[in-house]
């Protein structure tokens, strides 16, 4: 089908090439340079969408980011994108778009019945009904009726990128102001980033080809500016990039569309789909332009009704006639520019309807001279046409602008464009907490006070509308920013580009709600927020019901809450509210501007931080061995730890049982490299540790090790581990795997902030050392085969350390035990970890050495009643609760000590650590099981006396064992308790938390 509305010449499109695309299954042609919207209009397609609530037919309303209506579903699963603005989708070959939110088709949408019932469903209707019998019976249908496009059903195959960037001057907006600013700043040598959401620089100039800058067509100036910027090494120009957010301290978020505009077969595989930039800017120049404000009149939403500036854009930039016969409705001179554009491009111009009582500006004079029929003091009072505008009704207006006279004269037209003035695009400025002032002469909100350092707003965004003034303002702001960043023009005078154009749309007659022949709300609708179908009548209803704050009006009616976030509707809504409440517009105020300016893909926010990059996986030097030997892994913080090593035919329980037995029967080996390790040195190291730990370390002998417990100031257990005295002034502290980083920070914090007088230095050496624990009755024999050290208990007793070679590698060996068996913890530099591990395995064959994972380690330590911080404790457990009074020094102060004597800490019914044995020893209590005192079936709430913290099958005890925190547990020895599970109760007996080798003789081998 030919592009019958494409003008024969002009436009920034590549006519030499055609692009084939489909909309709702129909095939069309367009050209490179088109947007989906311009290409649809070129093919005479105006009906593109249905509205949110009433399913009214909607067309293309704007030519940019402010589009409320023309939302389409782009592409097919898995690369489908709902709610895409056709006005911003660049056309590519093979593009496929669908209408959304309609059934069975765009033309015949049965859901439009909601429109017929519209009187029953005014704003907020759902708050007043659907309460009986229950909301749940109504919610489903309402949910299905809501939403717009469809979310993808398949995982997104595309990749996204994220990066940081830094610059002296960030210029947002590549229109005349932004270009002038980027040039001025860039020429000084400052680092400049210029951001433009469009695929071309030029902004408003792209739609105004006759504009002159520096005495030549502005298009030439734009071209030259772009060429010059490309020669400046410190200037970066980002097109197709939207600055969507202005965060604290001049951090701005940009979204760059990298490959969205490529035909699928052309997309370079190595490029990400989109890239998020996080720019820290020394100075920010916001040159974000302005958005035209539509007039709010009756039935202002039909396909064929659009913004005046959009019509000019389609004519000039895309060489598309948006209609055959047009009416222009305006309250200012700007509408006449569209009228002149329409006429000069061959559109039959039926009339300009001007709310102003007289039109005396240069453009209106020109229009009059060209014979365009002009009706001043007139209003559009309504429209007709179902799927496309057919008629416009106009009538004269009274002096106050409150009433129209007569029944309305019909004018045949398929295009109606309106202009109600301009709103500076202050979104980013307001996100940065800048405040607005209402400018009466411009009838718009413009920036007032800035809340960020080093920020300027220039051009239309600042309420400066004349091109000449814009260029001067932008140039000056850029020079000031560059100068403040330490870059000057070096004495050479820098002059702003010149233009003779001045602002063209003043004066205006501001009527926020254009009256019609019928009272508001009766026959026809005055749409304020087109996407959400919020009408002027809805706003008045909200206020009538007491929702008078503009925030209440917004939330009650949902005006401005659609995907366009009210870019063309918010000021009109405020104006109507102000008029109704008898307030001024600034008294009503604006609702909060929030990021993003336009919606940002989740994938771009996530960037590369997905899948296995979401969180780093930290691995030990022996990781490859564990993998090769079939280990299952457990996540402990970011670490991957070997959990158990199933052999052929073994399930987890069997593997763990085998590993647990081996460690008691002969020897097992555990990779303990993940434990935190901190080297501590200084004359005050002992004193320091005394303050950190509940017990004393300053008296520890060199070469000896001691278990310690540390608390937070609230008295709760925070971490534990063994600390060894390496020398008079040197200690090596070990921490839990998960707590390593926190403990290091904790120690540094106290040293630096509270005890700077203590002479102590700390260095983390967690990963310097690969750590392997060999444990079991044959541990000594095994180790003896690989070291020359004297391993006899006399020279190497329990809780001591020795340095020597193991398998030819210099090692630190600690004789400490977390299993209750004779154990050695061998530390070698990480690069040799795997080699020494393999040597131990090799030599250990004769002892049937068995690698065991964290699960077996847990069973072994539970058999001995050793706690795990984070499992037996949860931030509400003190050392006294754990029965560890023996480790709490009475002689000295330490962190958290004072908290232990608070009244609640001393209560007898605090939860205390005990052991549990099930009545049927084969039954293993589930961890987390809650304990009750009675197994009689009673109704909840049933008082709980404690819970199971750890529970395992113990092959060495031949029965299940559990640790639990039980209220007053130490006084309950031998008492019967019940684990109350959803489907049964398990009875068990309270015991000491010690199940195996109660005398501890195995420790000494």
């Amino acid at each position: 089908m030919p592009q019958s509305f494409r003008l024969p010449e002009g436009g920034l499109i590549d006519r030499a090439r055609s692009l084939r695309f489909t909309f709702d299954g129909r095939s069309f042609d367009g050209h490179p340079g088109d947007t989906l919207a311009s290409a649809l209009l070129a093919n005479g397609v105006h009906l593109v969408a249905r509205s949110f609530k009433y399913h009214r037919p909607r067309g293309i309303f704007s030519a940019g980011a402010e589009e409320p209506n023309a939302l389409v579903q782009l592409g097919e699963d898995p690369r489908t994108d709902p709610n895409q603005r056709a006005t911003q989708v660049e056309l590519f070959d093979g593009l496929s778009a669908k209408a959304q939110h309609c059934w069975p088709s765009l033309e015949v949408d049965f859901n439009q019945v909601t429109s017929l019932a519209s009187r029953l469903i005014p704003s907020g209707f759902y708050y007043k009904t659907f309460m009986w019998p229950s909301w749940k019976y109504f919610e489903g249908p309402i949910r299905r009726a809501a939403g717009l496009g469809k979310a993808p059903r398949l995982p997104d195959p595309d990749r996204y990128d994220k990066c940081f960037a830094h610059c002296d001057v960030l210029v947002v907006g590549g229109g005349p102001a932004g270009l002038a600013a980027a040039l001025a700043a860039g020429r000084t040598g400052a680092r400049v980033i210029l951001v433009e959401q469009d695929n071309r620089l030029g902004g408003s100039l792209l739609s105004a080809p006759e504009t002159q800058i520096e005495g030549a067509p502005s298009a030439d100036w734009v071209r030259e500016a772009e060429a010059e910027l490309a020669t400046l090494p410190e200037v970066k120009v980002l097109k197709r990039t939207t600055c969507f957010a202005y965060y604290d301290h001049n951090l701005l978020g940009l979204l760059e569309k990298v490959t969205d505009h490529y035909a699928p077969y052309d997309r370079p595989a190595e490029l990400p789909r989109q890239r998020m930039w996080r720019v820290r800017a020394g100075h920010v120049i916001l040159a974000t332009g302005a958005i035209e404000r539509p007039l709010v009149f009756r039935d202002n939403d039909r396909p064929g009704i659009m913004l005046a500036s959009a019509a000019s854009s389609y004519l000039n930039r895309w060489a598309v006639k948006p209609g055959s016969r047009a009416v222009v409705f305006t309250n200012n001179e700007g509408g006449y520019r569209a009228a002149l554009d329409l006429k000069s491009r061959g559109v039959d111009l039926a009339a300009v309807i001007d709310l102003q009582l007289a039109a005396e500006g240069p453009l209106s004079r020109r229009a009059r001279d060209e014979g365009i029929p002009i009706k001043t003091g007139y209003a559009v009072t309504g429209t007709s046409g179902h799927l496309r505008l057919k008629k416009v009704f106009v009538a004269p207006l009274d002096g106050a602008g409150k009433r129209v006279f007569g029944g309305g004269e019909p004018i045949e037209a398929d295009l109606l464009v309106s202009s109600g003035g301009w709103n500076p695009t202050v979104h980013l400025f307001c996100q940065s907490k800048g405040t607005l002032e209402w400018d009466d002469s411009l009838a718009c909100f413009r920036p007032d006070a800035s809340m960020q350092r080093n920020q300027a707003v220039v051009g239309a965004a600042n309420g400066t509308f004349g091109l000449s003034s814009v260029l001067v303002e932008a140039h000056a702001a850029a020079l000031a920013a560059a100068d403040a960043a330490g870059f000057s023009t070096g004495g050479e005078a820098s002059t702003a580009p010149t233009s003779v154009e001045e602002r063209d749309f003043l004066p205006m007659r501001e009527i926020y709600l254009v009256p019609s022949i019928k009272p508001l709300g009766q026959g026809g609708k005055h749409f304020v927020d087109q996407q959400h179908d919020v009408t002027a009548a809805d706003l008045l209803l909200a206020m009538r019901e007491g929702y008078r704050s503009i925030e209440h009006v917004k939330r009650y009616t949902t005006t401005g809450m659609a995907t366009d976030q009210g870019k063309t509707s918010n000021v009109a809504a405020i104006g109507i509210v102000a008029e109704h409440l008898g307030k001024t517009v600034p008294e009503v105020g604006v609702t909060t501007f929030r990021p993003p300016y336009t919606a940002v893909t989740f994938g771009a926010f996530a960037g590369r931080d997905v899948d296995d990059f979401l969180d780093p996986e930290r691995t030990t030097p022996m990781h490859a061995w564990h993998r090769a030997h079939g280990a299952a892994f457990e996540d402990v913080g970011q670490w991957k730890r070997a959990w158990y090593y199933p052999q052929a035919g073994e399930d987890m329980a069997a593997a763990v049982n085998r590993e647990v037995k081996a460690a008691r029967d002969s020897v097992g080996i555990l990779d303990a490299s993940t434990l935190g390790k901190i080297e501590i040195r200084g004359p005050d190291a002992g004193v320091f540790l005394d303050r950190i730990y509940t017990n004393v370390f300053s008296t520890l002998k060199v070469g000896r090790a001691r278990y310690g417990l540390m608390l937070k100031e609230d008295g709760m257990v925070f971490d534990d581990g063994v600390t060894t005295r390496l020398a008079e002034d040197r200690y090596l502290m070990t921490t839990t795997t998960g707590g390593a980083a926190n403990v290091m920070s904790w120690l540094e914090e106290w040293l630096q902030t509270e005890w700077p007088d203590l002479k102590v230095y700390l260095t983390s050496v967690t990963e310097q050392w690969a750590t392997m624990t060999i444990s079991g009755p044959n541990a000594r024999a095994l180790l003896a085969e690989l070291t020359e050290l004297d391993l006899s208990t006399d020279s190497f007793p329990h809780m001591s350390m020795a340095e020597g070679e193991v398998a030819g590698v210099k090692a630190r060996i600690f004789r400490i035990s977390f299993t209750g068996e004779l154990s050695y913890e061998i530390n070698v530099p990480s690069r040799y970890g795997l080699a020494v591990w393999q040597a131990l395995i090799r030599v250990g064959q004769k002892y049937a050495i068995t690698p065991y994972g964290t699960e077996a380690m847990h069973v072994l330590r539970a058999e001995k009643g050793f706690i795990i911080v984070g499992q037996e404790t949860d931030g509400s457990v003190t050392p006294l609760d754990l029965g560890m009074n023996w480790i709490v020094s009475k002689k000295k102060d330490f962190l958290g000590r004072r908290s232990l004597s608070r009244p609640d800490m001393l209560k007898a019914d605090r939860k205390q650590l005990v052991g549990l044995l099930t009545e049927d020893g084969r039954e293993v209590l589930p961890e987390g099981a809650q304990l009750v005192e009675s197994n009689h079936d009673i109704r909840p709430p049933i008082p709980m006396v404690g819970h199971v913290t750890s529970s395992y099958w113990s092959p060495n005890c031949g029965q299940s064992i559990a640790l639990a925190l039980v209220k007053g547990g130490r006084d309950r020895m031998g008492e019967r308790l019940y684990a109350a599970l959803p489907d049964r109760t398990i009875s068990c007996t309270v015991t000491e938390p010690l199940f195996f080798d109660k005398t501890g003789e195995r420790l000494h081998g």
Partner: protein
Amino acid sequence: MVEDFLRQSPLSHLALAASGRSQRAEEDGVALAERPYRTVITLRGQAEDAVFVEAIQRALGLGLPRKVGQVSGDPRGREILCLGPDEWWVTDAADDAEPLVTSLTEAVGDLFAQVVDTSDNWFALELSGPRARDVLAKACPLDLHPRTFGPARCAQSLLAKAPMTLQQLDDTPAFRLHVRRSFADYAWRWLSDAGREYGVSILQS
């Protein structure tokens, strides 16, 4: 002396094979290389103590940089990185840290100072090429523009979600990135992925 073949880089599981510097990397790409087994000694001490400074300088034959972010020495040989007001790294091309640890330990003697061998706590990889800064910008919030960073400079920051010590080696630009050993695999794969759009070649270590 331990046999070299016993030691292992944390990237050995990737069986990295040098791809050589491709034409593309030469022009607009990046090159990655692992640099295991360098000596990295963490040194803590009081910069305001002239005795300490003097002792270190004598032991190393290098000036002790006093401003955080400064580096003295030869990036391919021995150098000192100032990481904090009382914290330095002494790094050296030698793969056996022991002699240096011994001489530094002797140098500081009873002074309030600390010398710890952290060669295996850290893992270095090098990223170079015309787009090296662009790749780093994806992972790191530092401003590495030549006006604010350069050779003989170092900084501690983040490489995506891994803590990193970064130093610039030359104007290629080439950077050395130190991450904790357990993050080696993460860092390598992250950088390889981030560099994909520019082309990544792997250099022999």
